[in-house]
């Protein structure tokens, strides 16, 4: 008889493989296995958030201090004030007002907590964007026309060598940053028409924007490939230790995939004859 812990591990592997393949089956077409997995996931995710908030915020930050220290007066540290702890009733009450959302008559009360959240994040955003983004980025772009020493480097590099290419690129870096940022800012300037010099600058600005989108595209591709790569490694290459022995994930994958294919063939050939046509 397999110990319970091992059975749990094996079941976990089975579930992991099942849910991975269930999502991948969407690539063939929308199907009941995918829909089941997706709906189950939505439920699990919602439950996860509630439990998480309960354990990390509600209990330690609100319930325990308020009830134990505030109401019962137990275990108040010398540097804490009981009055301040009792003030936790304010965020508690504002939080509870969220529930007012669920009734049409009281839903306006739910705006109170939303207003505090939006106000706080607006305040933090103002400071963050002004102090962390705007000023340092402008500051970083206050540059001389050429990087000091880059011309000497370019002159010293042998002609038609890769070294010369790097020296050239290095020499262009300050002009590119200066011209690029200025031209892009002109592109996003809406008070004058793009004609003549402004028009030309705006056009150069769009070029820089396109290059920067190209970079984003290239890096997005990299991330997406990595994500599937990790899943493929999990399904086909990895081994899972269960007790003393190593289970090959590929074997589990083969079994689960075969079962899924049988089900899908049955579903699309037979069961769906009467069903209404699906989208996609």
């Amino acid at each position: 008889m397999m110990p319970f812990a091992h059975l749990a591990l094996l079941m976990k592997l089975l579930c992991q493989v099942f849910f991975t393949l269930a999502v991948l089956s969407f690539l063939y077409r929308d199907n009941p296995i995918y829909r089941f997995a997706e709906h189950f996931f939505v439920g699990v995710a919602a439950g996860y958030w509630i439990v998480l908030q309960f354990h990390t915020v509600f209990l330690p930050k609100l319930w325990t201090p308020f009830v134990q220290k505030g109401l019962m007066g137990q275990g108040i540290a010398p540097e804490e004030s009981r009055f301040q702890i009792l003030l936790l009733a304010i965020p508690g009450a504002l939080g509870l007002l969220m529930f007012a959302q669920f009734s049409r008559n009281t839903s306006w009360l739910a705006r109170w907590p939303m207003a505090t959240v939006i106000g706080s994040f607006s305040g933090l955003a103002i400071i963050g964007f002004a102090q962390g983004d705007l000023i340092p980025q402008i500051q970083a772009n206050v540059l001389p026309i050429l990087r000091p020493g880059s011309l000497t480097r370019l002159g010293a590099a042998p002609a038609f060598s890769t070294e010369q290419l790097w020296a050239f690129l290095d020499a262009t870096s300050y002009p590119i940053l200066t011209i690029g940022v200025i031209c892009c800012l002109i592109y996003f300037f809406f008070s004058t028409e793009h004609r003549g010099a402004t028009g030309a600058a705006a056009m150069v600005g769009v070029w820089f924007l396109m290059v920067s989108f190209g970079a984003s595209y290239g890096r997005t591709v990299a991330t997406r490939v990595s994500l599937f790569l990790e899943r493929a490694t999990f399904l086909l290459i990895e081994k899972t230790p269960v007790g003393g022995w190593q289970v090959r994930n590929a074997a589990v994958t083969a079994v689960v995939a075969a079962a899924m294919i049988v089900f899908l063939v049955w579903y699309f050939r037979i069961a769906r004859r009467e069903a209404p046509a699906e989208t996609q």
Partner: protein
Amino acid sequence: MRREIPLFLTFLFGTFFVSMNFLQGDRLREATGGFLPDQINDWMSIIISFTYVLGVGNVLRIHVKKVARRENGWGYSAATLAGLAAMMIYGLILWIPLGIAFDGQPASVEPGREWMTGMQTGSVFNWFYDAVYTPMQSTMYALLAFFISSAAFRAFRVRSFQAALLAVTALLLIVGGVPLGETVWSGFPELTSWVMEILQTAGKRAILIGAALGAISTGVKIILGVEKSYLGGRA
């Protein structure tokens, strides 16, 4: 009152977080016995954490209705509710009697009962996280590897000079940003790193400056009550 109080709250908390940047936290803490800023920060954590109740409330409402009315596809909704129930039971409900008895801290749960302890290693809750949440979420995003490739073949079209610039930069990073690129031409790492650090940074920096101005002006308008659209309806 329906509009004034929310607007006042927005103003109050917004200006608090702005002004904290221009005050000395340590001195303020001494002067107020820790009320400012620490207590207010905790308050915000508490209120934000309640907003998640809303999300779950919506999930519940939609899916309970579907199941109750036996609407088309109600079986899937039942699966959602089952997932929600499993997480709530193992993460929360089984745990409540233990938690309140033990100062709300999972560390004090007696040995042999770890499976009940919410988010700690070895709990059933964590088992669900590993077995369902992790594979589902990572595979959802992995699907995009395929969607991006089909879009690349069927809809990525170089129809203008601008699109050509985008395509050339993208291709350069796609083939040059991986080790095989270095095998093909040893200069790729240097070239891609120049593209990333200089060439594309110019555009990104301008976007950053523009986005910063946008965010600041939106924030200012919200705090001062000029922009009220978040209270529902158009401004």
